[in-house]
């Protein structure tokens, strides 16, 4: 099932936050959306999830305009993880993850248990979700998305609160999801993570997509300088790249 946007334009409070972005996202791939603060990355992700009505253009899920798909149907296909998800009540980790079945309207146990296992949350199953550490909380919230077994996972900075070990675990899991056929679109701030682990990269700057493609091309030093205003150089070998900054 394809996910694509065509001249997608989104505005918030009258201000243009995403400006005529056209892109096609591939199922079975990890696409990293990167860009400086305020570039429109989160808005683009929300637009792709069908959560913001486009001012212009459209988002296609399969052969259908996402705006014409019923919210419940859309939710079965797209699992969206916002940047700062709140947890309002002191519900247990298990019950929170089971909310992932909400779009399906069922109480299927197997996908919930699978998500708990994958995110290594067995020990925390009965812990109140409001008493988790930042890293545990991030894993639980992602497990909720996984429990919905969506075709597309759209996650806004899912690695931000995680320590290195859990970042690696999560990236590996995104790769597994992609291998199994799901499309993964993640907003990342860490360009090295995008370079080393993404299949495709979309670079946003001031609401526009300035480039997209394979990481080595989309994250070339000249692109980084144009978007971030910082001179950089990639060091290391493919798959283990690190970004050295050379000044403004």
């Amino acid at each position, binding site marked *: 099932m394809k996910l694509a946007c065509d001249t997608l334009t989104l505005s918030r409070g009258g201000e243009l936050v995403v400006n005529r972005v056209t892109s096609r996202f591939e199922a079975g791939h990890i696409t990293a959306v990167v860009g400086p603060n305020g570039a429109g990355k989160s808005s683009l992700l929300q637009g792709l999830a069908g959560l913001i009505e486009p001012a212009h253009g459209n988002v296609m899920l399969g052969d259908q305009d996402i705006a014409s798909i019923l919210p419940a149907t*859309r939710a079965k296909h797209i699992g969206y993880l916002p940047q700062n998800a709140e947890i309002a009540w002191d519900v247990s980790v298990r019950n929170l993850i089971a909310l992932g079945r909400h779009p399906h309207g069922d109480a299927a146990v197997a996908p919930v248990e699978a998500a708990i296992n994958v995110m290594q949350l067995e020990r925390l199953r009965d812990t109140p979700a409001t008493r988790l550490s930042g890293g545990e909380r991030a894993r639980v919230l992602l497990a909720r998305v996984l429990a919905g077994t969506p075709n597309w996972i759209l996650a806004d900075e899912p690695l931000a609160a995680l320590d290195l070990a859990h970042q690696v675990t999560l990236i590996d899991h995104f790769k597994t999801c992609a291998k199994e056929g799901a499309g993964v679109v993640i907003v990342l701030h860490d360009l090295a993570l995008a370079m080393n682990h993404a299949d495709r990269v979309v670079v946003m700057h001031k609401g526009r997509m300035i480039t997209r493609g394979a990481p080595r091309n989309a994250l070339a030093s000249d692109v980084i300088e144009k978007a971030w205003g910082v001179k950089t150089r990639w060091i290391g070998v493919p798959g283990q790249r690190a970004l050295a900054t050379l000044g403004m």
Partner: protein
Amino acid sequence: MTRANLIFAALLAVLLPLSLFAGRVWINPFADVGAVADADNIGLILMELRMPRAILAVVIGAGLGAAGAAMQGYLRNPLADPGLFGIAPMAALGAVASFWIGVTWVLPIFALIGAGLGMALLAAIAGRTPSGAGGGIALFTLAGLMIASLAGTLTALAITMAPNAFAMSQIVLWLNGALTDRSWDEVWIAAPLTVVGLGLLFIAARSLDALTLGEDTARSMGVNPSRLLLILVGGVGLTIGAGVAVAGIIGFVGLIVPHLVRPLTNKMPSSLLVPSALAGACLVLLADSLVRILPFVTELRLGIMLSLIGAPFFLWLLLRMRKGEL
């Protein structure tokens, strides 16, 4: 049946017959009917006075409890009370208007019209949030508070400009809420509306669970915020409006009851609705039984009794919040 449902259903099963027998005239259910001199009067007291009163207490309490649980779930705030959102004050304003014009038999109709206007205003202002613009719940809260404030001011105006002292005292007394002298007529007004209202709140239950993770996540999980808001306004409006129409303002039940119930549930908003309805019924039934048996010259108003219980409870909640226990 969950533990919370079982506990409050059992409590209700005990309280309901007790409330029928308790009052200025105590009725011994085990007495030999043939040996009781005024068996006819006792039958009259039971069937025409206490039974409708008890059923109304159950109906109104259930509506207030479930509406409170739904509002706390919607606003993701344990201090939310359905009375804060304009519908009850608008219903009261409608009722006060009937006193003002001196035609009290239209009181329930005026109160329901008031509640309906409150619901329509709330839905018109807060229900049109453009998708993705955010602020839907904040807008709902502010709109509700402003409607409540406006209705409260107009009610105060109606009291100060009451056509005569009798109308003024009637209004003030009525606003304090009571089930005194209510008949089957009031039951037939309140019960069907409350049942429909409860039905709407139960329809909203799963969406309220999704809101546990915030508005954006709930929308991504397929919740339609405009539809949810309309269902909730309808559910809360019917349950609260029906209660105010027959009993006046009865506060604090919607605030207190979900807190009593929450520790016995898995904390999901949907799991609170049924036990909150049962617990609300228990609380109003208990309070109404107490006002009947307390040895005052005139019967204490139910609304005052519940406020006397509710206000200290609210302060206790605030203290718990301060200590980070909520």
